């Protein structure tokens, strides 16, 4: 724009580099997750311990986030709920990614399989997520396992679509065609050339799935189809809070959800940074 003079660039800001940002947020998230897991170990049975002389007390120095109707410490229960959400989310996201990867790979093997897989994707995408989750949790009879399976089975289609498109493009890549022309089998091409290429996509995909998985787990539990009410899951805490809303016991409703929001936000940021960096 300014003719003649070389344009003056702003000094390079190393914190704006995507890789560094990703590494930083990975570090912080790992630290927080490790803290969360360690806290479960340190807490013991604090989330279930009842104090009948301190029921429904508002947040104070003694009771950091207040207590619930049975005098259980809300901060301990919230931490336990977040840890529970983390494990359920991890397992569900991992399973979901595996399903997406295997179905996308299956779809590239023959065009008939491809039609079948894309029909399955269309079918799952046409039912609202939550309805499908309720149907699957209903079919499996509820409980932790049912939630993990339900979330895993419903969340793979969007990732499978991305992987499938990537695979279709890759099939036309010169090195793949050469490999095929040299007589290598489809299976060899798939796991020797294509899968290594897809791994970063899978990693980012799994991380992107994770926040959704956590949110849907909490929602399903909140509605009464998920984890059992005896477990201190975030959904259970909030469903409990619903009964005390009109009494003005605001801390019961606010803090567990805030914890969940912060956790989801952290992972959302991490996956965005990683996607940009990779």
């Amino acid at each position, binding site marked *: 724009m300014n003719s003649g003079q070389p344009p003056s660039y702003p000094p390079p800001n190393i914190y704006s580099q995507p890789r560094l940002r990703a590494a930083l947020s990975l570090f912080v998230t790992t630290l927080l997750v490790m803290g969360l897991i360690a806290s479960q170990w340190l807490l013991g049975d604090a989330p279930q311990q009842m104090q009948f002389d301190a029921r429904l007390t508002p947040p104070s120095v003694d009771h950091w986030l207040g207590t619930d109707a049975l005098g259980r410490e809300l901060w301990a229960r919230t931490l336990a709920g977040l840890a529970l959400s983390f494990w359920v989310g991890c397992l569900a996201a991992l399973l979901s990614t595996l399903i997406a990867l295997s179905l996308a790979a299956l779809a590239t093997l023959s065009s008939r399989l491809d039609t079948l897989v894309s*029909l*399955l994707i*269309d*079918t799952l*995408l*046409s*039912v*609202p*997520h*939550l*309805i*499908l989750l*309720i*149907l*699957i*949790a*209903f*079919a*499996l*009879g509820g409980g932790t396992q049912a939630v993990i399976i339900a979330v895993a089975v419903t969340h793979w289609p969007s990732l499978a679509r991305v992987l499938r498109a990537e695979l279709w493009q890759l099939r036309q890549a010169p090195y793949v065609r050469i490999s095929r022309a040299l007589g290598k089998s489809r299976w060899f091409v798939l796991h020797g050339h294509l899968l290594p290429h897809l791994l970063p996509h899978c990693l980012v995909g799994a991380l992107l799935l994770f*926040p959704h998985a956590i*949110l849907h787990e*909490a*929602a399903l539990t*909140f*509605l*009464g*189809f998920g984890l059992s009410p005896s477990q201190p899951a*975030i959904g259970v805490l*909030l469903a409990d*809070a*619903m009964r005390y*809303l*009109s009494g*003005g016991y*605001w801390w019961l*409703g*606010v803090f*567990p*959800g*805030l914890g*969940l*929001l912060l956790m*989801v*936000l952290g992972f*959302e*940021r991490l996956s965005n940074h990683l996607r940009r960096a990779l």
Partner: protein
Amino acid sequence: MALGMQLIPRIARRLSRLTLVLLCVALVSFGLMMASPVDPVDAYLGPQMAQVSPEQRALIAERWGFDAPPAVQFGHWLRQLVSGDLGWSHVYNQPVSEVIGQRFQRSIMLLGSAWLLAALLGFSLGVAAGAKEGSTLDNLISTYAYITASTPAFWLAIVAVLLFSVTLGWAPTCCAGPTGVLNQDVTLASRLHHLLLPVITLALLGIANITLHTRARMLELMRSEVATHAFAQGASRFDIAWRHGLRHASLPAITLAFASLGELFGGSILIEQVFAYPGLGQATVAAGLRSDIPLLLGIALFTALFVSVGNMIADSLYSAIDPRMTSGGL
């Protein structure tokens, strides 16, 4: 004329695809119901289970065809479905089609207004944010969008009830009308008053997606040659956003709005539950918790139709307005 000739096979193809997908949804959801540990006869009898002898139970099962193999039952159910009979809901003691019809009438007010509000607000925020990347306004709007994208829907509803209904007392805490008043006596003003908070909560959640998408589109435009050319002619950012941006970004926003009907419906289930709003979402939860299999199947099919039609509109809009999309087939 030529357009019409092209249009008919395309519509026919889409409709046949829709039928196929709905058939698959029916198959999958029926399969899930068959796999569930809930016994339909027990669910129907409820607490009267103890008063019924095993012989009578077997008789009921035979009468309803539960002793037949699953494939035969599926065929039977499908035949009834085609003739318009969705079965009987034991939770509401009404035919399933009536339950869905009545409940959907209430839900559509919630869904429709939240959808419109989310689309309009989300689009305007996206255009405002994307007009100048990195500005204070952009940072504010993007942060807001990122945060709402990670907010649990039901938690936001709980906080809204706490703040506006319990603490401030501006809005009612529950239901679609005041308690103790007959449904037909509820005034329009009261209805709207009860609808206000759920609509705003549902809309707030839907905004994020559209905002972020529109913003990305606007950023793309601001870096394009079109914008450079306009800048060179002395146009301001506002001019470009107004003249080019609106048209450039509106199509993806509309498409996204139609494609996100499923998410909207999912959000409405949670929000109806928190606000005790007697719509289709609440009926879904009741059907699931109380093992009302015909109602659950009916709702699954109905929402699948709702979402598929939304997706179809989104696809058609895209190919109708952007001719580059047409060559790709369906």
